[in-house]
């Protein structure tokens, strides 16, 4: 089976139940896949749970063997030293206890005030018995606070209700768990997250003693697998975040620092709240790192000086901002932090970057970020990427250690699969005139782009319309799409005929698509348009500004020859008679010529 089509750990929580089971069935045991013996004991039906947990662990690279005790035999299995449970010699013991099972016991109980204590001490006693005979990882589900409300809003404050009883049981279990080394799976949270009305499906309890609808079992057992695997050393230690449209709204290179959406606008508030969520992770010892296609100096400026940023320069263990490919940049981050690839999660709003990183580093978690930043926090909660112990002093010291180091990364290791990845993207470029559809975006590029902008001539809308109508001008823009989606208009060019020369008046490209050979394609289209104008030479100028250093050597890189200087401006030319088309993995679409 193709490894890339298998879901990653974060995705498992979102799979439909039957899909999870069916994927699990297709996994074959690989050499060296570690075994894991799990005993599952429950006072609710455990078959769906057991199947789903097995599939989840297989998809996460383990080979589980599950012993499912008979329904509602938790006490017998644990108290009898000769039980199947102990014969099985489990490495993990799971106690799946359901709130529905408490319901009847509580109703019959004469001593309601003492019920919570009696249930929790009984459970703790069972833990001790397991502990006395086994060193297994012991996992206890807490109880879902039920929906019964005999006292309305006062229900929780009345001691004799099941609601307050369950709340107290959960608290006692938490208190005792750390003492006993027991791991609590927060079923109550899961039920709340997905909606208790749906989670506590009365029909399924009455029909089949199902504590929850199978629809939510993938999410629950994903959390169980997280709890188990953390004990086996797994866990995310670093979040690598993109900046533009991930940490803030807008594109720094195009919009400028003062136009970024952070905090002040509706969308900006969503990004700011996401930054707070990341700061919480940092406080518990998860490292944060930046990997952004941007200019390092601009990024440093925003991280140090933007008044609305929650996350600051000092919060990051590494900041890598350049226009190189992100796979190589991540290798640099990894080298600096000295962590395994499976210790990272990569958060980026751009489908291209996610797909590249997932292809390059299958062990790295690459969740599908929502297009709406307002979804980020609740998505992170569902993916449960950061299961883990509490931060040690050592964890927190680690950040200071990295900060003392130089922030600027040198790329030593290069990712070599980039060309293949780009070739398989199925890129298609549409060469478009400056028509009424394209004009607003062209204007935006012309007015705002600073970095990939060879001349920084700020034409007005009226200028652009005039240029579009001029027979001695070839003006076009490029819209790029690939199998991951539509990137919109990402480049714009204006050529003016001057005798037998075609002068490149404007050449702007979005930095987002750097390194995808769009530059090469643009030169090819320019050459063609120049010929159509009846020209024999392309003449390009690089007018340096404080911000466009990134394209300083673009013309020589594209095979143009130096043709002099006019003050600070450098002039280059390309003889069209000698220009050879390259093979570029982008399909070109051009509109029918207007007659």
């Amino acid at each position, binding site marked *: 089976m193709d490894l890339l089509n298998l879901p990653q750990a974060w995705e498992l929580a979102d799979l*439909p*139940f*039957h*899909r999870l*089971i*069916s994927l699990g*069935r297709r996994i074959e045991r690989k050499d060296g896949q570690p075994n894991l013996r799990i005993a599952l004991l429950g006072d609710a039906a455990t*078959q*769906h749970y057991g*199947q789903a947990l097995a599939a989840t662990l297989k998809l996460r690279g383990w080979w589980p063997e599950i012993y499912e005790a008979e329904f509602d035999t938790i006490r017998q299995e644990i108290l009898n030293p000769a039980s199947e449970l102990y014969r099985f010699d489990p490495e993990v013991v799971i106690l799946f206890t359901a709130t529905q099972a408490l319901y009847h016991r509580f109703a019959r109980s004469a001593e309601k005030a003492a019920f919570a204590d009696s249930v929790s001490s009984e459970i703790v006693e069972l833990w001790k018995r397991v502990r006395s005979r086994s060193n297994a990882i012991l996992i206890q589900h807490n109880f879902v606070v039920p929906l019964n409300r005999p006292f309305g809003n006062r229900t929780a404050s009345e001691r004799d209700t099941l609601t307050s009883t369950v709340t107290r049981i959960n608290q006692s279990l938490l208190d005792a768990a750390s003492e006993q080394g027991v791991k609590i799976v927060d079923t109550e949270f899961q039920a709340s997250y997905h909606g208790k009305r749906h989670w506590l499906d*009365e*029909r*399924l309890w*009455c*029909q*089949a003693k*199902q504590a929850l*609808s*199978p*629809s939510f079992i993938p999410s629950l057992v994903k959390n169980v697998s997280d709890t188990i695997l953390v004990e086996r050393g797994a866990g995310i230690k670093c979040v690598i975040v993109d900046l533009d449209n991930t940490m803030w709204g807008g594109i720094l290179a195009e919009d400028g620092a003062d136009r970024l959406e952070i905090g002040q606008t509706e969308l900006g508030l969503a990004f700011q709240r996401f930054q707070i969520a990341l700061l919480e992770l940092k406080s518990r010892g998860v490292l944060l790192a930046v990997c952004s296609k941007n200019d390092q100096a601009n990024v440093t400026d925003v991280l140090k000086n933007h008044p609305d940023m929650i996350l600051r320069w000092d919060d990051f263990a590494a900041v890598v901002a350049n226009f190189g490919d992100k796979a190589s940049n991540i290798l640099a981050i990894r080298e600096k932090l000295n962590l395994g690839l499976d210790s990272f999660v990569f958060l980026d709003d751009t489908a291209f970057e996610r797909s590249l990183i997932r292809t390059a580093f299958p062990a790295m978690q690459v969740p599908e970020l929502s297009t709406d930043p307002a979804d980020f926090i609740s998505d992170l909660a569902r993916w449960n990427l950061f299961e883990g112990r509490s931060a040690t002093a050592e964890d927190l010291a680690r950040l200071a250690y990295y900060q003392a180091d130089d922030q600027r990364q040198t790329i030593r290791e290069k990712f070599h699969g980039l060309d293949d990845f780009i070739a398989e993207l199925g890129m298609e470029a549409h060469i478009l005139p400056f028509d009424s559809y394209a004009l607003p975006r062209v204007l935006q590029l012309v007015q705002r782009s600073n970095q990939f902008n060879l001349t920084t001539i700020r034409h007005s809308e009226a200028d652009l319309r005039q240029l579009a109508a001029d027979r001695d001008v070839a003006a076009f823009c490029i819209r790029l799409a690939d199998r991951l989606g539509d990137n919109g208009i990402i480049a714009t060019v204006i050529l003016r005929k001057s005798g037998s020369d075609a002068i490149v008046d404007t050449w702007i490209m979005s930095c987002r698509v750097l390194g995808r050979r769009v530059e090469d394609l643009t030169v090819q289209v320019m050459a063609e348009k120049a010929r159509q104008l009846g020209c024999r030479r392309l003449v390009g100028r690089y007018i340096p500004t404080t911000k466009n250093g990134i394209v300083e050597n673009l013309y020589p890189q594209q095979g143009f020859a130096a043709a002099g200087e006019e003050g600070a401006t450098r002039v280059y030319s390309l003889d069209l008679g000698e220009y050879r088309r390259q093979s570029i993995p982008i399909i070109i679409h051009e509109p029918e010529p207007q007659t």
Partner: protein
Amino acid sequence: MSDFETRVQNVFREVFDNPDLNIYREMQAKHVVGWDSLNHITLIMTLEETFKVKFSTREVMGFQNVGEMMDCLREKLPT
């Protein structure tokens, strides 16, 4: 086969993990590999999610065959 029946059949194919499964009105659990009480619940839940309907407690276990199940389901759909 109507559009509706095709959608129901697709749910069966997914749940029983068999892309060639063909459903018919008289079909019962014993005719389908893997249709045990466990997968029955998965089937009912998947139908509920797919068609955005809810079966009653009695209905969840009460169907004699696929035809009855489809009739019950169709009645719940908005017309």
